[in-house]
């Protein structure tokens, strides 16, 4: 091999640099997001149940919100029947945020942690520190 020394040392430097994020962050795990559910509105509920099950909402709330948007705005339907037969008004402000009035402790927790920037709040009014 010609120039073995410079090639190998160059490779070494390259490997160190490319793995930098891994070894630099070893042992420094970021705190898991903790969305809070203890708003006064939720505490007053006798049966603490969202429009869908917790795992479903956690994984699919964005799809559900998009479906709600289509139903409400484009089809003019404002009543959603949940799987358990309970009916809800299709409205971010009047339904979702009535319970989840703590945007900073609920929505923002995961969104900030995952660097997701939904633009809901450009127009929809976030409740102020309820």
């Amino acid at each position, binding site marked *: 091999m010609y120039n073995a020394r410079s090639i190998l040392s160059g490779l070494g430097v390259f490997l160190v640099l490319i793995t930098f994020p891994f070894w630099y962050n070893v042992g420094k795990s970021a705190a898991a997001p903790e969305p809070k559910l203890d708003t006064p509105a939720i505490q007053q509920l006798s049966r603490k149940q969202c429009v869908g099950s917790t795992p479903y909402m956690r994984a699919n709330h964005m799809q559900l919100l998009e479906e709600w948007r289509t139903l409400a705005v*484009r089809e*003019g*339907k*404002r*009543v959603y029947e949940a*799987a358990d037969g309970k009916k809800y008004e299709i409205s971010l*402000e009047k339904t979702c945020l009535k319970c989840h009035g703590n945007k900073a402790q609920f929505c923002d927790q995961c969104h900030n942690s995952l660097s997701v920037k939904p633009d809901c709040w*450009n*127009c929809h*009014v976030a409740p102020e520190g309820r």
Partner: protein
Amino acid sequence: MSKMDRRSFLRFGGLCVLGLGVLSGAEVLAEKQLKAAPASPALVGKKWAMVIDMKKCWEAGKGECRDCILACHRAHNVPDIANPKEEVKWIWTEPYEEVFLDQKQEYTAEGIQGKPFLVLCNHCDNPPCARVCPTKATFKREDGIVMMDYHRCIGCRFCMAACPFGARSFNFRDPRPLLPKLNPDFPTREMGVVEKCNFCAERLEAGALPLCVEACRQGALVFGDLEDGNSEVRTILRSRFTMRRRPELGTGPNVYYAI
């Protein structure tokens, strides 16, 4: 295991494909069932329209009353911008000569000359704004309301150029800081979208009349279904002489003016 011949392999494969198709079809059906249920108290119409009795409006308000405008703009979070080049409006007034351009003449009756007429989106039968919208953010609902989906609006302003009534406003800046008072139950708009009157679609779905109709203490604004022969709007249209704005353009406005 016995070796599969070509014929049985194809048969088996075909059955599998068929099964997959049935499965996804069933899923679609099952999904559809738990979607929206119809709202019970909603006001339902086939062709919503409005009749504005300008005489009642002038007599009672003496040209000063702004009840309907204020009620609408407050409830819908319409910002208050003084600069006419940037103002946002859903319902406002214009002098007679501007409203009925085709009727403009030198010898207009004194009682009408320069009088303020209440104007809003005409929710046309054949809305040019909806036709030109490249994203279908503006669309015509089955009940006649020309509706906007602000989520889709890209702010190209084709609709503003297409609307012959100037019923659309563009948000040149973030409207939120310009609101006198924020109504938390209705969304605001953001910078870069067009907006207009929605005939209070959100109120109709809850069984209430449009806010401007409700806010008018004189009952100068009447809202109803044109397809219903017994509706109040039809009764007025039968008995009074009414005008529409620029009918010659063929957009089919659904706001009528009784003078």
